[in-house]
Every structure is written in C-alpha cells, then in structure tokens.
C-alpha cells in the first residue's frame, strides 16, 4: 500500500509537468484526463484505507476492489500515453517546428499587428517585424513563414483598411457574407481580416486555414474549439466539407464531442489562391472562421471531433483510425 502511495505520488508529478503542454495538444489533454481520473480515485481511496481507523470489513473489501480496478486502468492508460508520446514527433517543448515558432509569434501579438495597419505601412514594415523576431532567435524557416503570413496580412489590411472595416462591422455585425458583399472582398479575405482585428473590437474570433492536403497551415485558436497542431484533424470539420466543394461556402453550428465544450459557429469556404497558369492550376486552400455560438435559431448542432485518436464518437463514417479512448483506456 505504501509503495502504491509512493508511485501515485510520482504519477502526480508527471501530470503536473505535462499539464503545461495540454493547452497546445488535444491528444495529450484527452488521454491524460483518463489517467488523472484513475489517479484521483486511487489517491482518495487509498488514503481512506490508510487513515480511517476501524474501517468496517465490507468497506475495506470494497475499497480494495476499487483500487485494484483503478490501478489496472491506470496501468493501461499510462502505457497508452507512453506509446503515444513515443510515437509523436516534436513533443519536446524545446524542439519546435517552424510552424509552431511562427504561430507563437502571432499568438504573442494576439494576431494583430498595428505596424501593418494604416496607409503608410508597406513591405518594409514586414521586413522590420521579421528582423526583430530573428534577433530574438526565430529560426530561418520560421522567418520565411512569418514573412509570408505578414505579407498576406499587409495585403488584407490594404484591401480592407481597419477604420472603415470596423465601421462596417459595427453596422452589419460579424456577418462575413454581408461584409464581403459591402466591401467587394472575397469571403476568405474577410475571414482573415476579422481574425486580425484587436480582440476588444471584434470579440473572440478563431480561424483555421488548410491546404489541399488537409494540413493546417494557419491556426488562430478560440475557446471551445481544439485544433491539432498540423495534420490529422477531424474529417467532419466544415473546413474539409468546403474543400470538397470549392467556392460553395458552408455554415454550421458544431460541437466537439466528448470535450465538455460549448457549441460554436463555423463558416468555411475554399477557393484557389492566386491566378494559376496553364501548366499548373492555382493551389486550393480552405478557410474556416470560428465565432461564438449564435444560438438555437441558427439550426441544429453537428457533433464533430478533434482528431480520430482521441474522439469518442462511436458510429462515424469518417473515422480513419480507432480511438485510444476506447481501446487503451
């Protein structure tokens, strides 16, 4: 019993270390939830056994049985977690992909760059921002990604200058279709512009962009919607539905199954980026804007997932691999 208590303590310390990483990794968050539940039950039960004087034999037997169950569950859970961590690349906080580095810069600025707003802003402002990050240690590949993202930001800011755009937003509400109609811009550009406004002006706005392979190349998070870091997102996302029918916008109320989260509104559209040529067509990209739930009046809520490995949805035609939640835990 003492040994079990000590091992439980070690497990708790492991959990504390991993907790910091949860915010960025939904796989880890869901697998760990199972392990934590087992640890919590074992801790509470074993201290009852250790601390309660004159515990009735029926209770003692019952609590012994519970600990036995939970420790089996903990063993399976810990093994599944180790298998997952070993198999997953770039889990170490020190080893970041260039995409992670680029997103960290954007997140640190809340996805808004005042330097790129206003008529005076130009490519030099982009170069200065990238240079400043390079001096703080941003890697070469991440500088390239940041340069590309900020150049697109600059183009968007020129096409839809902030003050008139905000005035329209106040008048029309966060309605991308009407904003696009009023400004003559494309939906994808309006999505990006909404996601680049200061939070105080536009409220919470999330945005995901994927390329034709489904890889998430841009992620601006929003509360209540988890996103895997690169590939392997849920195929039920409206983002991918839009990708299968370019130029036909999709609007859905969605909720990620098993996360205890709230519903959210997802608006998605896919289309070619750039003009393309006769040798090679323009690449297609899909954008998905995420807004707070508009409420019951806007239709039923679709259950979607984060990624198959951690998804509890049982009967799903889009599933591509079994969930470790069902198997390992």
């Amino acid at each position: 019993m003492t040994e079990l208590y000590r091992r439980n303590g070690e497990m708790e310390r492991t959990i504390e270390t991993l907790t910091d990483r949860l915010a960025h990794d939904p796989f880890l968050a869901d697998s760990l939830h199972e392990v934590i539940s087992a640890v919590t039950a074992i801790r509470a039960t074993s201290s009852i056994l250790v601390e309660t004087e004159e515990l009735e034999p029926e209770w003692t037997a019952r609590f012994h049985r519970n600990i036995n169950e939970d420790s089996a569950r903990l063993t399976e859970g810990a093994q599944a977690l180790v298998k997952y961590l070993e198999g997953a690349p770039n889990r170490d906080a020190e080893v970041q992909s260039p995409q992670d580095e680029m997103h960290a810069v954007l997140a640190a600025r809340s996805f808004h760059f005042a330097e790129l707003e206003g008529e005076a802003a130009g490519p030099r402002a982009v170069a200065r921002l990238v240079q400043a990050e390079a001096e703080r240690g941003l890697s070469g590949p991440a500088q390239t990604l940041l340069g590309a993202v900020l150049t697109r930001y600059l183009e968007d800011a020129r096409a839809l200058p902030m003050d008139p755009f905000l005035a329209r937003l106040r008048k029309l509400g966060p309605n991308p279709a009407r904003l696009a109609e009023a400004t003559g811009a494309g939906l994808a550009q309006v999505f990006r512009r909404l996601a680049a406004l200061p939070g105080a002006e536009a409220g919470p706005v999330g945005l995901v962009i994927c390329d034709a392979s489904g890889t998430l190349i841009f992620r601006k998070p929003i509360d209540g919607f988890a996103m895997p870091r690169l590939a392997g997102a849920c195929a039920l996302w409206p983002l991918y539905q839009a990708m299968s029918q370019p130029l036909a916008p999709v609007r859905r109320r969605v909720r990620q199954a098993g996360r205890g989260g709230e519903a959210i509104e997802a608006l998605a559209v896919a289309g070619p980026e750039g003009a393309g040529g006769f040798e090679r067509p323009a690449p297609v990209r899909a954008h998905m804007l995420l807004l707070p739930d508009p409420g019951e009046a806007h239709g039923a809520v679709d259950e979607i997932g984060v990624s198959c490995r951690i998804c509890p949805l049982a009967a799903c035609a889009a599933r591509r691999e079994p969930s470790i939640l069902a198997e390992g835990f």
Partner: protein
Amino acid sequence: MGKTVLLIEDEPNIIEAVSFILSRDGWEVKTHANGHDAMDAVRRRAPDLIILDVMLPGKSGFDILGEIRGDADFAAVPVLMLTARGQTRDREMAERAGASRYMTKPFSNADVLDAVRALAGE
C-alpha cells in the same frame, strides 16, 4: 439533521470515495452521474452544497453551473468545481461562471474536506 451535499461526477470510484469521506464528516451525500439532467437532480435534491465535475457526459460542468446560477432558488448555493485539467483557462471559466471554489484533480481527501467545510461555514 445533517446537511445535504450533491456530488455530480461520472467516475464511480471517485463518487464512492468522496461520498464515504463526506458522509463520515456528517454530510448526507446524494450523487448524480451525468450532465444531461443534472439540473433536475439539483432541483429534486435541493442540496446545501454542490460538488460539480467539469467534464461530464452529456453536458459541460460550466453549462450546468450557468443553469444553477440562473435559477433564483439555487443562485446562492455554494458550488465546488472539480476538473482534471489544470489549465488557467478552466479556472477563469469557472470563476466567470460563478463557482464558489475550484479544485484540480488529483486532490487529497483533506483538500475536499477543507473546501467543503469552508464553503459550508460561509
């Protein structure tokens, strides 16, 4: 007559352990294991204190807390929230939703007793 605590949690062995500890401390413990009809359970049991897990099948603990706080009969009942996620975001969401107190799993039995006693004394 003891005071009543309603424990809304979906892990059977956690329910059993926490119920045991609290009943030994003089509480009458009622339990409920899912999110869908948790608010019905609150109305039926009319507890003096509620312990609410954040991750429940059917409905999020935050939504249930919102319903509890939105009901004039229960707006003032102390609610202790439990979560397995140690993220600051959860803590902020719990505070915003009106939790009286917040506890991260795994917790010790002494933590539960202290929290419950402190809430009961307020």
